[in-house]
């Protein structure tokens, strides 16, 4: 099927970020003093387990960041493109996306959650729970067959997951064997006792956990709504997976927006001191005393008005939602650079008195060059730590902001909109709990993995923690 790839602004930034990370990895690999802390991250079991889980989240997010329009049937010689923008993730989850129900249905249900008046074949009307259009539609007698079918499919998924895991484990063992030039059995023992420099055991454990959950879910998802459906009948699992990208984009891009402010202003304040320092300090003290939510709400509403008045600039709903997402990143970034800036100022105040900076001054090296060459590289460990630590905070902030209605566009699926949509249904009897639970579990997994990874990064980069352990 022909298609046309379309880059949204956030896609562009996400892929630029990926390119940047790859570039940094290549740069770091060749420099032992830069790669040393990453080697320490690799040696941390919790860090590597968290990184494995994060990897799957990032993979989901990246798949969701390649958008395309599929071709419509040719009419009048001119190729026409669909008005709907889909991502690779949508394509992979096509069965989930397409299998809409009428309204709420519980996880793994075969019938709708609410009674409806239906016209029976003999012409009578009755109020009953109608069969779902997709969930368990293949079953002749849902009451009798459902659980057996679910168990059989789950088992099939579980077996497939185990198989995949063994393939991965053998791959890891073979790789270790090649590196250590030993037999594959010895290599496996090495991996399994956790003696490899990179904690492959932790990676394999986390991979196992992810596969054991994902395998049965994937096997069931083709014929059931594993996490139920929401008010408009959309699959909740699909929503949760789509939310991952929104969370990741907010978490990473907003942090990136904070960086230039924090880095430039923090280093300048610390290096020049005097009135420049005073000015920058006043700036961030003032900014951090304005309630952040108010500022964000105001900015987002202004952005919304602007978008609505300039519809010609933003031709489709996807683009409008995307612009609003970016605006949210920017405003979140602008309101949250003060903490890092303060940290960097303090560190630079200390560094500028160091003797290599003074030696450079004695050579008449320009201020700009001293800041670029001698100060910035030496505060990068703080930046690194702040980056990964802020990430989870921003993911949570998005959820809160969307919940109160100043976050992402309501048409964009995110954890916040999921929670917002689910909150009224909590009061229903019987309760509709699955939307909230799905958002909660996914967000917990993402933020917990990010926090564990951040801890590992901080331990590896923080010179004080290292000094405490290593000093003779």
């Amino acid at each position, binding site marked *: 099927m022909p298609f046309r790839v379309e880059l949204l602004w956030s896609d562009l930034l996400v892929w630029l970020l990926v390119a940047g990370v790859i570039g940094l990895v290549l740069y770091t690999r060749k420099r032992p003093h830069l790669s040393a802390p990453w080697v320490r991250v690799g040696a941390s079991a919790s860090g590597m387990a968290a990184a494995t889980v994060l990897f799957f989240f990032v993979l989901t997010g990246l798949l969701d960041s390649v958008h395309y329009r599929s071709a419509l049937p040719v009419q009048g010689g001119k190729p026409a493109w669909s008005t709907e923008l889909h991502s690779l993730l949508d394509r992979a989850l096509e069965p989930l996306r397409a299998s809409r129900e009428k309204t709420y249905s519980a996880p793994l249900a075969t019938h709708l959650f609410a009674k409806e008046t239906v016209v029976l074949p003999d012409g009578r009307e009755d109020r009953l729970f109608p069969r779902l259009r997709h969930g368990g539609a293949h079953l002749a007698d849902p009451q009798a067959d459902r659980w057996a079918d679910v168990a059989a499919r789950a088992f099939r998924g579980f077996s497939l997951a185990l198989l995949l895991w063994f393939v991965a484990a053998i791959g890891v063992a073979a790789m270790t064997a090649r590196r250590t030039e030993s037999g594959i059995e010895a290599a496996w023992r090495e991996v399994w006792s956790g003696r490899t420099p990179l904690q492959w055991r932790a990676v394999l454990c986390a991979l196992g956990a992810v596969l054991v959950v994902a395998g049965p879910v994937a096997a069931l998802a083709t014929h059931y709504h594993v996490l139920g459906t929401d008010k408009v009948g959309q699959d909740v699992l699909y929503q949760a997976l789509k939310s991952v990208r929104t969370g990741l984009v907010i978490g990473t891009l907003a942090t990136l927006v904070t960086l230039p402010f924090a880095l430039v202003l923090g280093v300048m304040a610390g290096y020049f001191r005097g009135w420049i320092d005073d000015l920058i300090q006043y700036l961030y003290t003032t900014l951090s005393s304005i309630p952040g939510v108010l500022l964000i709400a105001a900015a987002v509403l202004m952005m919304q008005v602007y978008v609505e008045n300039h519809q010609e600039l933003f031709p489709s709903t996807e683009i409008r939602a995307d612009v609003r997402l970016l605006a949210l990143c920017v405003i979140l970034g602008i309101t949250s650079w003060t903490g890092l800036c303060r940290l960097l100022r303090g560190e630079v105040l200390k560094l500028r008195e160091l003797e290599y900076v003074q*030696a450079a001054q004695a*050579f008449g090296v320009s201020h700009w060059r001293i800041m670029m060459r001698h100060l910035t590289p030496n505060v990068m460990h703080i930046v690194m730590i702040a980056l990964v630590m802020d990430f989870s905070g921003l993911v949570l902030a998005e959820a809160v902001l969307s919940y109160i209605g100043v976050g992402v566009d309501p048409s964009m699926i995110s954890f916040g909109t999921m929670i917002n949509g689910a909150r009224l249904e909590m009061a229903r009897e019987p309760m509709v709990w699955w939307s909230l639970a799905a958002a909660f579990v996914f967000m917990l997994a993402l933020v917990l993995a990010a926090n564990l990874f951040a801890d590992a990064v901080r331990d590896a980069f923080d010179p004080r923690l290292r000094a405490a352990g290593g000093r003779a």
Partner: protein
Amino acid sequence: MSAPLLSVDGLTTIIHGGGAPLRAVDGLSFSIAAGETFALVGESGCGKSMTALSIMRLLPDAGEITGGRVELQGEDLLALPESRMRDLRGHRVAMIFQEPGLSLNPVMTIGEQVAESVRRHTALRGAAADARVLELLDAVRMPDAQRRATEYPFQLSGGMKQRVMIAIALACDPALLIADEPTTALDVTVQAQVLDLLRELQQSRGMAMLLITHDLGVVAQVAQRVAVMYAGQIVETAPVDAFFASPAHPYASKLFASLPERAGRGHTLAAIPGSVPRLDRAFSGCRFAERCEVALPQCAGTLPQWHEVGQGRAVRCHLYGSDERGAMSDERKAESPASSRSSFITHHSSLLEVSDLKVWFPVRKGLFQRTVGHVRAVDGVSLSIAPGRTLGLVGESGCGKTTVGKGLLRLMEPTAGRVFVDGMDFLALSRGELRQRRRDVQIVFQDPYASLNPRVRIGDALEEGLLALGIGADAEWRQSHIDALLEEVGLTPDVKARYPHEFSGGQRQRIAIARALAVEPRLIVCDEPTSALDVSVQAQILNLLKRLQRERGLSYLFISHNMAVIEYMADEVAVMYLGRIVEQGLVDEVLRTPRHPYTQALLAAVPAADPQQQRRAIRLAGDLPSPLNPPQGCHFHPRCPVAMPQCRERFPAAKSWSSTQVAYCHRHE
């Protein structure tokens, strides 16, 4: 000798790190008799502090005692449960550390901190405990103990804090006091006070002391027996007198030879080549073999055994094994005395001329940051240096000597005064002009670890000055220039691609010197360039600086607190006290016939590495006053043993003793 108080037998401590475990202490055996002062001396990283911590069982988490016995009065300390060990620490064995500022809790008054130890280990409570605290503070000569007991650590100077630490250690009359570099962080005049105190306390209380130090001078003044440690092992033990008369182990004798005060001026110091071996490998022979000049063929392959050489001394060296005895000769390579001394005349037109330099730091207060006072770090300093000569600037910490160096380089903007470099007024230059003249004056810093950017490769660091000053036509010329420089300071050009963390302190200091030399300066400000280095490495660096001066006709402003180094390096010397120069002259005049009472006290306080040499008993009271609020008149009068009424009123005028020696003191007017 009666049964020893403390006996250590085969103590082995390893430290687990990233790679192979470090054998920080490797089969150490020694014993201390009751009432004896035993010194453990060695260079940094040889395992002295680890020995002390192992005895106290206070090792860091990564450390582990893997073998040996430590017996205190017949009781095996390594077998005791931790709860018993806690009773013992501070009670029967007490310890004081190097950094008194870090050993005291900043939010408790010092009285409480002493009382804590009293209450922990004795039954004294309430008024009795308070009385005991005052008694202890008196015992360590804390002036005005009653009032001081209610003060917090930040109100006390470094010397005072160390006295408090000693008072805490003495709280229960321990049988053994372990002092880990107790005076290293202190100034020389304060160090003399603390050493006197330790010696007196040890004698009056019959307490044994394990003194850990790198300073042979301190050993000579305080200890009765000495053990020399090298790379985790003791290589020689001897009574102090015999040891200082003729050290037996080649390492010990080289240590002496590398002391600047023992070598004559104009002689090259006998530096020990290389550096201490890493302790994470196994040794098959003598650990010193690869640096030893008199190594025998078997030294590299066979572990040397202990050999008794009489008078209670023992050496771990093959030279004393069989018939090789006497192979040692104290050969000191006599460099041709074509020293820099005679080749230049004193009244040569000067390269650097500083007159009335003042560097004041404003003290700001209040909402609008009004200036309410000044810290007069440098308050009217005048000096001059002729081409090819060295001026030593000496003084205690906080006297402003580093600020002089930075002020004349305009790393700190001076408040007033003039600095002429080769006739050009350095302070009147605009920023652009200054940049051009920067190549004339360069600086070498104290801390070799802070003076190189850890993220910049050596080659790039050396090139930085050339690029900034626009020296050198093209990259090729610059690279060959850097190669030549590295070879000149004793490194190979292939270090260019490496990062600073791969180098030892001495190598880093060589790199820092090469960096300063890169722009071909005429004057180098050496700001304590060797005070962070071990004695043997210090000798290497001093030799290098001397050679460079000879070959390039460099001038040095050599800033140091170490009299011996100044004596070795400088042609002229200026003594600074609290922002002002109090005495100035040729090095021989000032050090042989000091005229100012401060210079005299300073010289008397230096512990000589010779137990025979009786020190003249000039003891300064108190500490350096604050430069924020210096005393009226002569700054030195509150501590001066011979102060007169007019000292309080005005700063004394210069009094010349020869064409070169000048002192500022009322007593000589």
